[in-house]
């Protein structure tokens, strides 16, 4: 590998991480919002959210990305590859996060809420002080797992011309006529990030199990 190749990989890694972080930061609260709408059974909108989640969960990220990247300009909304990438990632992950948050909300004990009502907490206060801290803890392992899944699908962003790790590998492979080595480098860049998240998830699960047993 030439120094130029190394710097291409480094820049690609920055792009991959930045896009993933953007997707996660947008997807987490949006997913929570969607889950709350479904939980509160807001008429019509609740149904629409359920439909959105069901479709998005079934849609491959490539297909969603191609749809956004090619169809939005077609209906008069110009979009660059990076915005399309962030939009696709956050739409995709928000659907999965919605299901995670919703599962925690559905499992939330009713008497906890009633105890909060009986001391006169308003809906907002109940949510912020009693519900959120508990569902965040319960959802954490699943949310971290979803983050690792999100990073695992980011290589596909290269399809619309995002210059990330994968794009760097494809380009170097095409220039050198030796495609295998650059892909192995790409794997070596991805694997530690994903392994870190998977380990984090296991660590959290084990710590929570230990706390419960005590």
């Amino acid at each position: 590998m030439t120094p130029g190749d190394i710097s291409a990989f480094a820049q690609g890694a920055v792009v991959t991480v930045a896009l993933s972080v953007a997707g996660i930061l947008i997807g987490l609260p949006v997913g929570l919002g969607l889950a709350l709408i479904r939980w509160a059974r807001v008429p019509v909108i609740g149904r629409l959210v359920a439909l959105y989640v069901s479709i998005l969960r079934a849609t491959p990220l490539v297909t969603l990305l191609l749809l956004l990247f090619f169809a939005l300009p077609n209906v008069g909304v110009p979009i660059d590859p990076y915005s399309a990438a962030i939009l696709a990632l956050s739409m995709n992950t928000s659907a999965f996060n919605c299901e995670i948050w919703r599962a925690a909300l559905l499992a939330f004990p009713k008497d906890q809420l009633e105890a909060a009502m009986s001391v006169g907490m308003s809906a907002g206060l109940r949510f912020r002080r009693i519900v959120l801290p508990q569902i965040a803890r319960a959802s954490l392992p699943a949310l971290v797992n979803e983050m690792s899944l999100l990073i695992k699908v980011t290589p596909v962003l290269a399809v619309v011309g995002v210059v990330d790790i994968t794009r760097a590998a494809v380009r170097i492979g095409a220039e050198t006529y030796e495609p295998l080595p650059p892909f192995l480098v790409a794997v070596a860049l991805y694997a530690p990030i994903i392994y870190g998240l998977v380990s984090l998830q296991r660590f959290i699960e084990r710590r929570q199990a230990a706390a419960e047993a005590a």
Partner: protein
Amino acid sequence: MNALPHPVLNVVGVSKSFGAVEVLSDISFQVGKGETVCVLGPSGSGKSTLLRCINWLEKPDAGHVYLNGEPVGVTSAGVVMNDRRLSQIRTRIGMVFQHFALWPHLTVLQNLIEAPLQVQRRPRAEIHEEALALLAKVGLHDKRDAFPARLSGGQKQRVGIARALAMRPDLLLFDEPTSALDPELVGEVLVVMRDLAHEGMTMVIVTHEMTFAREAATRVLFLDRGRMVETGTPDQFFSRPATERARQFLQRYAAEAVTAQR
């Protein structure tokens, strides 16, 4: 029963159905200041539902609830209260739950402080001092930094009572506070409740502890299939029940209570 001049709690004609089943049917009673009213009745007779209608965790289908003369749940104009108004009134009605319902992410002390600080917005120093005093009173001063998961059932319920008291409520509601506890832990909770009764706390207690009801109650309400069948002093109710249903009920529970005491 004579109407009290200034009842703390006034329940007027409350009814409640779940689907086609009428769970409460035209219940009326009053609770005066310092009274300890025990609600008795067989399982499924509507005791919990009655308690939950008092602080509007359950919305009554008909009837009214007044706390110190002010309507609960509906404004004097007959409009259902918004969340804020209702919350304000609920701060004055404490509730103790069968399964404790302590907030597991907060320590014992934080459980006590949470609502007075966040809802009543009283000064932190004052709340803190009062909370510590309450913990001492229920005998859990040394557990103030423990998380609820670390406590025994009896300790949890004493925290539950202290949490309700920290709001300085006008009225305390108990829903079978000891029925989730191991038999040997029941006593420590009943002691706390008995002390409260002596200190003149106004309380409505749903319970199956007949001995406690007999000794600590100023009055007993007997519910059967959603109707208030009988009410009177514990002495009247336990020695000379007026209805056949109450007699049957007492035979079963008195027998149990006597065996349990031996």
